[in-house]
Structure formats: C-alpha cells, structure tokens
C-alpha cells in the first residue's frame, strides 16, 4: 500500500510503523484496515469523481461523524488533522502532492487515534486521485493521438484517390464543422453544412486576406473562419476554410486544416495538370480536324477524348466586336479566353467537353450542326463574360474530311460579310455567293469575270479618273435594273446613269436589254465581289 517512507510527507510516524509491520497502530481496528484495503481496490481505475464519492461514503464507516465534505480548493500545507469550525480537516496529500482537505463534520471531539483511519484514507485518496488525473491525462493524450492518427489515415486515403470535394468532406468529418474551398473566382465548394453569409468576403477583402496569408507561415484566423492558402504562397489564391463562429477551434482543427490544405494543393495542381493535358489534346484534335489530318489519326485522338466524330458539326468563327470608339485590332488573349468560355456556355457544353480554340484573334468552334445560332447569339449578347461578338458559321461536316471545307466556307462567309452589320452569318444562307464559293477552280471564275467584265476592268485600270462603271453596273443590278433607283443610290442624275450604262454597252459590246446577257453580267458582278472578298481560292 505504501512503498515510500510515509512519514516523509505525512509527518506521522504511525504510518511508518503501519507500512513496516502491517499492524494497525493503537486505536485502529483491523476492520478499519480491512475496509481501507478494499477501498483501495475499489478506487483503482475509477474516475476522480467516483473516487471522491467512494471516499465520502466510506468516512462515516471509519469515524463517527455527521457529514463529510471534500475541499479541493484549499491546500494549506498542513501534514495532519487540524480542527476547523464544526469538525476536522484532514489534508489530502501524497508525495509532492497536496490536493485539498477532507472535512469531517462532527459534534464530538475526536482525538488523533480516532482520526487516524481517516488520515490513511485521505492519503489513499490523494494517490488514487493523482492516479486518476494521470490516467485521465493519458486518456486525453491517447484520444488526441488517435484523432491525429485518424486524421492522417483519412487524409492520406483521400490524398491517394480523392478529389477536392472529398478532401473538404473529410475535413468536415474530422472537425465536425462547415468547411469551404474557395477558388480564385469566388466560387465556393462547401461540405458539412451551409456556409454562413457572413463568411463570404468582398473581392477586396479576399485580396487582402490572400496577401496576408502569403506573408504568414501558417493558417490564420479571419473573423469566424480559420483559413489556409492552398498551394505555394507565391501564387496560390485558393482558400481552404473552417467555420468557427464560437472561436473554439484549437490546435487539432488547425492541424487538420493545414494538412488538408497541403493535400488539396497537390490535388489542385494535379487537376490543373490533367485539365491542361486534356485541353492540349483537344486543341490538337481541333487543329488536326481543321487542317485535314488522316481520319484514323483523328479518330484515335477523338476516342481518347470521348469525342464522337460521327456527330455532324459546323465550324463557327466567333470574333469579338470592339466597343464603339475603340480602334480595330486583335483582341486581348484574356478577352478571347472569356469569349471562348462564353461560346461554350452558350452551347451548354460542360467544362471539359469544350471543342473550341482561340486562333488568329477569333474563337474557332466545332459546334453541333443543329446548334440554334440565333439563340446562341442572343445568349452571348446577354453574357457579360463573353462580350459583344460576331458569329460566322460554316457548312456542315458529315465526315472527318469535311472539317477543312467547313472552315474555308466559314472564312469565305466572314470575308463576304465583313463590311456588313449582321452579328450572325451562315454560309448556308449566302445565296449566289455560296454557289461561287463552292467553286474550287479559281481560274474558271477569273475567266468568267474577264469574259463579261474584262473590258470594264481594263478601262478602270487605264483611266483612274474615269467614272466607276463597274460600281454603276453593280448598283443598277442591285436596284433591279431601275435607272431612278440607281441614280438615287449613287447620288447621280438619271441622265448620268443612262450615259454610263450606254458607255458600258459600247465598251463591252453586251446588250443589257437582253435578259440572258443581263443575267450573265449580273453573275459576273457577284463573282467579282466574291473574288475580291475572298482573295485567291485555296488549293
């Protein structure tokens, strides 16, 4: 029961004797010793409160008393019983330890011998309480260690196979709190409940917080939130956050947050890398289709990206329209990126399924053939992220080999409509220009133009100051062969128009009153417009 010399800390030689001989001192019956022995067994492996309750219940069986109290607030340094109002105080003490006093209330005077069993009990009590406290501390330490091990286990598992959503789920599970992952654009991914409105920051406050986090070595508290930067401090902008409205989060929650932020950083980088790789593959596929790569190669790449090349598509060119009072020129890359994202949104394609690239100051998009472009243009116009733009849609691609043609047609349509003010032009609705564009032999087109308009073209080259006979002829045909309308369009007198038309007849030898001749010349005018707009036809 007592291994050390008890008198060292109790100052009572009777304890020394009891420890040495096992014989109770005078005034202490064997029964009391027996009780204390059983009590010491019962105090083992119990909580502090249970031990105190046991002691309080035992004292009346050791000494005549009217009540028992335990005072754990007073440690007055006494080594033996002392009289207090209404009773006696016995120090609850053991080696290097004084825990308080055991107060025995009694109406009668008690001598040292009568109080000795209580004194022994108080010493047992001190040892038992000290052990219970140590045990409780160990228990807490083991519980804390187990929590950390569980954290390690769950986060390691999620690091090996989970995404960012799983990481935030695990943080919510481990901390029992609402967790939010906030991306650079303010998008928030929440786990474990609802992210309080009050925890959402303004862009300015967010920027300030990110700057602060970049200066700090660890996570920080920002109001009711613990927050850590996800990624390298030099460039990270994503935030992992734990809601802590009652400000009770401690070292464990901080540890979970920072551990998870480190794992999330790796996952974020991996996701970005994967997305980048897939994006590059998509760019490669689109470029190859537009250039006319052999079909097996295109199909192999498309299979990797799960793109169905048998689905009919059209090539669409979307060019940002500069704001009024700004100079024409190539749009900024950021503007084009936003436009590309807007085009994908307008077509309802999810992230990762895009089929568009930015090229030569415009977005080149492989759109579903049945895409409702009128609606899409309306959507784009309303999309503040995309900005105003102009859309030109090529012909339908039914096979892999059709993509270059669709691109050429889209470009031709864009060139033919360049000076127009329509924000949507479809190759299929170009009329005679579409027919002319379908011609693959530039020489035939030139021969035709020269046959019907060669004289006028040469006349224009020879005499730069001469009247614009080709322009007059174009207006004449566009106005339905009306001299009055032509004069109005060109701001000329009707007699001037008549003179010019006669001059045309004289120079070309073609009779404009003859319907077949007039139709042939009208086609030649369109062909000239198309050739001027399109430039040399590609091989």
């Amino acid at each position, binding site marked *: 029961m007592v291994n050390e010399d008890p008198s060292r800390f109790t100052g009572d030689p009777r304890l020394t004797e009891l420890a040495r001989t096992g014989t109770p001192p005078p005034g202490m019956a064997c029964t009391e010793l027996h*009780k204390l022995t059983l009590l010491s067994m019962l105090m083992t492996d119990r909580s502090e409160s249970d031990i105190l*309750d046991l002691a309080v219940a035992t004292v009346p069986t050791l000494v005549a008393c009217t009540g028992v109290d335990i005072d754990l607030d007073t440690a007055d340094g006494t080594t033996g019983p002392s009289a207090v109002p209404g009773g006696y105080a016995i120090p609850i003490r053991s080696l290097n330890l004084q825990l308080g006093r055991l107060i025995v209330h009694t109406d009668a005077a008690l001598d040292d011998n009568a109080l000795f069993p209580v004194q022994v009990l108080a010493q047992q009590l001190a040892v038992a309480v000290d052990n219970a406290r140590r045990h409780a501390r160990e228990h807490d330490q083991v519980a804390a260690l187990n929590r950390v091990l569980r954290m390690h286990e769950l986060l390691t598992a999620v690091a090996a196979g989970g995404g960012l959503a799983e990481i935030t789920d695990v943080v919510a599970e481990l901390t029992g709190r609402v967790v939010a992952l906030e991306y650079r654009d303010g998008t928030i991914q929440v786990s474990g409940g609802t992210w309080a409105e009050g925890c959402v920051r303004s862009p300015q406050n967010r920027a300030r917080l990110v700057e602060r986090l970049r200066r700090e070595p660890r996570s920080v508290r920002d109001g009711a939130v613990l927050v850590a930067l996800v990624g390298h401090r030099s460039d990270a902008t994503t935030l992992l956050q734990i809601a802590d409205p009652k400000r009770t989060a401690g070292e464990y929650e901080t540890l979970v947050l920072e551990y998870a932020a480190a794992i999330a950083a790796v996952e974020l980088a991996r996701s970005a890398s994967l997305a980048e790789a897939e994006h590059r593959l998509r760019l490669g596929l689109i470029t190859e289709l537009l250039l006319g790569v052999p079909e097996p190669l295109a199909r192999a790449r498309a299979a990797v990206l799960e793109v169905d090349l048998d689905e009919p598509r059209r090539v669409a060119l979307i060019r940002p329209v500069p704001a009024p009072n700004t100079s024409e020129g190539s749009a900024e890359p950021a503007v084009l990126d936003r436009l590309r994202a807007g085009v994908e949104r307008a077509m309802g394609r999810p992230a990762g399924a895009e089929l568009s690239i930015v090229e030569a100051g415009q977005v080149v998009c492989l759109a579903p053939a049945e895409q409702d472009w009128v609606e899409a243009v309306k959507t784009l116009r309303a999309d503040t992220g995309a900005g105003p733009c102009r859309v030109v849609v090529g012909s339908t691609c039914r096979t892999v080999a059709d993509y270059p043609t669709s691109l050429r047609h889209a470009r031709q349509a864009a060139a033919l409509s360049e000076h127009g003010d329509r924000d949507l032009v479809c190759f299929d609705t170009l009329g005679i220009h579409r027919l002319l564009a379908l011609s693959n032999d530039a020489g035939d087109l030139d021969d035709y133009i020269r046959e019907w308009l060669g004289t006028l073209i040469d006349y224009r080259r020879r005499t730069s100051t001469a009247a614009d006979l080709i322009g007059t002829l174009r207006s004449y045909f566009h106005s339905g062969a009306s001299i009055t309308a032509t004069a109005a369009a060109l701001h000329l007198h009707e007699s001037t128009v008549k003179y010019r038309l006669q001059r045309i007849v004289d120079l070309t030898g073609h009779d404009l009153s003859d319907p077949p001749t007039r139709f042939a010349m009208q086609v030649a005018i369109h062909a000239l417009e198309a050739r001027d707009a399109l430039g040399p036809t590609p091989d």
Partner: protein
Amino acid sequence: MTNLGSAVLDEAPEGTHLAVLFGDPAERETLLTRYLAGAVRRGEGAVCVTAEAAHELTGSVRRVVGPTAEVAVVPTHDSYLRGGQFSAQFMAGWVADLVRQAPSGGVERQCIAGVLDWCGDLDASGFEDLYRYESTLNLLAPTIRHTLACFYDLQVLPAAQIINVLRTHPRVVISGTVWDSPFYDEEELRPLPLPQ
C-alpha cells in the same frame, strides 16, 4: 483481514449471500460462468436472473462444463423489474418461493445468481428499497442450503452506493477475490419480515 480466496466462488458454501462486483462484461461473464458452472459440476441447480439471452448464458456454461449443462434463466423483467419497477416486497417473496419450490423439482440445492445491471436507474428511495431486499436475503440465507450471489456492475452502480452494497452483503467479490465484508453490520440492517 479475511481474504477467502477465489475458491469460494467455485464452491459456493451453503447459506451464503454475497455481492459480486465486476468492472466490465468480460469479468461478469467469467465470474458468472464460474459460479454457475460450479453448481452444474456438483449436480446442483443453476439459476440466473438476468437480461442476458438464455442461450448465450447457457452456452457459456456449456463451454466450461459440457454440452448437457442446463441453466434456468429468468428474465429481469419477470423478476427484479416485474411490473416495470423494482419492489423489495415482491422480489423477497419471489426468491423465497424459488428456494421453497426447489425440492419439489428434485433440486436439493441451488446456486442462484441475480445480475443487477439495471440498478443505475434507481433513485435514492429505489436504492433504499433495494438494500431492504438485500437485508432480507441476509435473514433468508442462513436458513436455506442455497447460495445467493448478487452481481453488481461497477460501471452502472453509482460510486456513492458501492459502500452500501458492501454494508448489505456479508461477503463480497472484488477483482475476482472473495472477502468477508468489513462494512457488513447485521445491526445496521433494516430487513423486511421474512416471507413465510
């Protein structure tokens, strides 16, 4: 000091009333099985009042003694808590009937165990009633050949009540060892009239 050793639990002397304190389910199973298996080995009746399933308790005893061992298991709700709450009056009569009817069933002697793992729900007057019942068993035990063992769960029994259990049982089992209880005092007991 009177440490009676662990053999008392195996032998279960006639006319003994003892409290068996256990700290966890494993200790309960060990002590209960040992007590009941001892009775079966000696050809005595083994009776247990418990909430535990009969087949589980009997299975535990059979694993120790053999496949033919039988334990009469009485559910707690048919004895201690009949009618939904504990009644010292009823329970004392119930035990008296049990021991009185034993010979007619061809059993001269029984080892009777009662598992009081439900007593944590008692209030002060409930505990008062319980100790009156235990006191009554102290009157009954010396008059019969049977052994009465009350199994108390230290996880359930409030610490402040442990000393009262020791005061109302002449013998106690703590950590598997049987002791004469130094807290037991016949003069302190307030038993009910012994059921006739």
